[in-house]
């Protein structure tokens, strides 16, 4: 080590990903591992809340960094994405590999799952081939113990030639020893002698040709990558590594004539023994996997226990033909019910606080003799819109996201994808889209971000574009209110809420159907191409970290979405207030716009004001109904009515029928995504084209669906 990196460009990836400690003496540690090994639990337990999340530069891969202190030094822990391999098959693997190669970490911790060592060791070998400064953290030791699995850590450490530490991160066990082991590797107290993976003779001979040339090329450069590993990648014909070598280490492999000469010699030699490029890759990976098999046979002892069968038993129920779908619907139903019921009270408190502050703000403006239009614009326009969005949005999200994260951490969500994949496959989509849709119920912007879990680009785009067909928290109140006052109007008592619930459920089912149909159409038209590979791991069920879930989902999801919502709500407040308060003759701008839109809006069963409310409600769906009320009552400020009866009276007096309500509800699930979601789509797809398509596809569906429904009902004379 001992290099500054400034002169070499080696530290580029660290710098551009803003992974730097407070000072140059900070120690950078990379955290790698397979998915579902409890890697994030290790990360959380080591760093607590001293974390920072963002994206890797140029990639929609989450980048989390945390800090901890040990022996008086500050450690920066970089949480790499969970991957099975480092062969750069996906953006996640690319990020992980680039950081280990070029981020110049002082040490790399590889988290492995004690309950399936064999599969996990593959990644350990791949990392050991790059760098010797590795500590293996065998996590989930407690779970392994319950399952009757014993891992001989001492033996594993001897075989691998590097420190191995056993942990149960959920209980905080073994973490101090892990910190100490990292420390010892960093300050060279322990000299790693990593096991050398021997390939077959032909491969070794080819490596022998390349390695001296690569060593010569690397001489004098501050490059810590193993020359053997580089030789392997070049032999494989890995184009990506050649590109990143040039980018981060200023090393141009292709420019070295001697090396290229040796590469073609090596390929000729392999071809002479009947080994082509595909077979070579097979041999390399097979060697690693056989080695993993061999070592795990030596260090792992298994004994059948009852506990082992528990997962099977649970899966027998949760994925059964009879119970699978009812249980899923029931769980989702309970989450919605808790969210809607429990959000009411905090919403009221928040809006009372905001309203009180609004009064104070107006008093302040009056005290300064500010003109009425200014206080109107800033307080009744901007402030009120922002306050509205926050008080309606925050409580349900703060409840929904932790509950959803709970299901995620339990391991239930992959089962949902497993249950529903066939339906999504028929629509040319990915089973994990079921999960991103569920997330969309909380917030479509969060749903769009969740689409990162879908690893195939085409299915991911489908999931992003169609996410808006599931109604988010902001649209639920509209659906519930309209179905209660118009559809369930005839019913009484408990029956009324049942009818209303069924109506909302019907709308959701319709949204899901539309999602599947549109997914199919998209994949057959603008997204044509072969379906991607589908590989889904069902991890064992695990006890979640409840406390951490609360904090992390609040910080990562809720506040993030809220922040974006506020940034779009503020300017929108200005526009809405201006339109409602700038008069030409005796009509305001809103009236003119609504009158202009009215003939078209009537065709699709709405009226000009409703359509205008949807357009002005672009920043957040929560404010659509308040804008409708504002328009009908000509108050000039957004407002809510005290009771559903008052709302019904107002709407009926303005010409609403049950058809208007149905079309408004349909339009609510089939219109452009809100501003926050559009911003997020822009960020996630990095393309204006896909953002525009995500805007146009739902609105086109909405116009078609509402037109058909409105015209049919009118022709049949049902209104």
């Amino acid at each position, binding site marked *: 080590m001992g290099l500054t990196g400034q002169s070499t460009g080696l530290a580029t990836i660290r710098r551009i990903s803003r992974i730097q400690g407070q000072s140059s003496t900070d120690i950078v540690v990379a955290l790698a591992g397979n998915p579902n090994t409890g890697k994030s639990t290790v990360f959380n337990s080591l760093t607590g809340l001293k974390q920072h999340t963002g994206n890797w530069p140029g990639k929609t891969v989450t980048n989390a960094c945390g800090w901890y202190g040990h022996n008086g030094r500050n450690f920066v822990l970089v949480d790499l994405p969970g991957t*099975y*391999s480092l*062969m750069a*098959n996906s953006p996640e693997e690319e990020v992980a590999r680039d950081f280990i190669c070029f981020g110049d970490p002082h040490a790399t911790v590889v988290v492995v799952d004690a*309950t*399936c*060592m*064999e*599969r996990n060791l*593959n990644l350990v070998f791949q990392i050991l081939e790059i760098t010797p400064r590795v500590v293996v953290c065998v996590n989930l030791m407690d779970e392994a113990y319950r399952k009757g699995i014993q891992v001989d850590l001492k033996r594993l450490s001897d075989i691998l030639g590097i420190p191995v530490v056993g942990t149960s991160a959920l209980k905080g066990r073994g973490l101090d020893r892990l910190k100490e082991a990292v420390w010892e590797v960093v300050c060279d107290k322990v000299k790693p002698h990593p096991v050398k993976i021997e390939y077959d003779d032909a491969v070794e001979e080819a490596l022998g040709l390349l390695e001296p040339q690569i060593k010569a090329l690397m001489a004098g450069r501050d490059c810590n990558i193993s020359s053997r590993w580089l030789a392997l990648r070049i032999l494989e014909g890995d184009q990506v590594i050649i590109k990143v070598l040039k980018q981060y280490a200023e090393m141009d492999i292709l420019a070295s004539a001697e090396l290229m000469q040796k590469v073609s010699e090596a390929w000729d030699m392999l071809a002479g023994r009947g080994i082509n490029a*595909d077979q070579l*890759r*097979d041999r390399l*990976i*097979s060697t690693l*996997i*056989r080695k*993993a*098999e061999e070592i795990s046979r030596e260090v792992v002892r298994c004994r059948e226990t009852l506990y082992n069968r528990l997962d*099977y038993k649970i*899966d*027998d129920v949760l*994925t*059964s*033909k009879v119970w*699978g*779908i009812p249980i899923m619907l029931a769980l989702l139903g309970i989450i919605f019910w808790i969210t809607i019921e429990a959000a009411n009270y905090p919403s009221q408190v928040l809006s009372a606080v905001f309203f009180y502050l609004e009064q104070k703000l107006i008093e302040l403006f009056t005290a300064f003799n500010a003109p009425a239009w200014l206080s109107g614009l800033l307080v009744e326009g901007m402030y009120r819109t922002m306050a509205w969005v926050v008080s309606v949005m925050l409580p349900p999200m703060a409840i929904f996201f932790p509950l959803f994260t709970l299901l995620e951490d339990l391991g239930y969500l992959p089962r949902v994808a*497993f*249950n529903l*994949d*066939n*339906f999504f*496959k028929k629509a040319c989509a990915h*089973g994990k889209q079921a999960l991103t849709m569920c997330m969309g119920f909380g917030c479509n912007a969060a749903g769009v971000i969740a689409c990162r879990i879908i690893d195939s680009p085409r299915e991911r785009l489908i999931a992003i574009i169609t996410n808006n067909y599931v109604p988010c928290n902001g649209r639920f109140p509209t659906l519930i209110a309209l179905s209660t006052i118009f559809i369930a109007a005839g019913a009484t008592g408990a029956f009324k809420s049942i009818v209303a619930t069924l109506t909302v459920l019907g709308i959701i089912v319709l949204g899901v159907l539309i999602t599947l149909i549109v997914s199919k159409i998209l994949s057959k038209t603008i997204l044509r191409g072969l*379906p991607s*590979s*589908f*590989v*889904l*791991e*069902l*991890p064992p069920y695990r006890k979640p970290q409840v406390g951490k879930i609360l904090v992390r989902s609040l910080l990562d999801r809720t506040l993030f979405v809220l922040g974006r919502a506020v940034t779009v709500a503020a300017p929108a407040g200005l526009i809405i207030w201006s339109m409602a308060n700038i008069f030409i003759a005796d009509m305001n701008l809103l009236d003119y716009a609504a009158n202009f839109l009215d003939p078209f809006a009537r065709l699709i069963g709405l009226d000009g004001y409703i359509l205008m409310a949807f357009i002005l409600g672009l920043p957040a769906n929560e404010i659509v109904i308040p804008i409708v009320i504002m328009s009908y009552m000509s108050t000039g400020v957004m407002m809510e009515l005290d009771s559903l009866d008052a709302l019904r009276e107002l709407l009926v007096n303005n010409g609403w029928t049950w058809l208007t309500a149905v079309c408004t509800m349909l339009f609510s699930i089939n219109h452009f995504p809100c501003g926050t979601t559009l911003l997020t789509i822009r960020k996630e797809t990095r393309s204006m084209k896909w953002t525009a398509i995500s805007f146009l596809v739902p609105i086109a569906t909405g116009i078609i669906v509402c037109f058909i429904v409105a015209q049919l009902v009118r022709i049949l004379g049902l209104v």
Partner: protein
Amino acid sequence: MELLPLHLLPIGCTSRVKRINAHGALRRRLMDLGLIIDTEVKAIRRSLSGDPTLYEIRGTMIALRCEEASKILVERSVL
């Protein structure tokens, strides 16, 4: 030796991988999961609508659609 595409392996049966007909990224992904020649695979359960199927591969549970599983050929003799 007679071969059988993995998606036709009956639930509860274990067999060994003998050939992988996938190419490129899919082949790589399957191998990274530990699916190489002679790897034991057990068919655990089918999804409620018949596809995908869950397989036990080297101690982990991996669901594969029949499109992917049909590219993995296993020994028929276990039947």
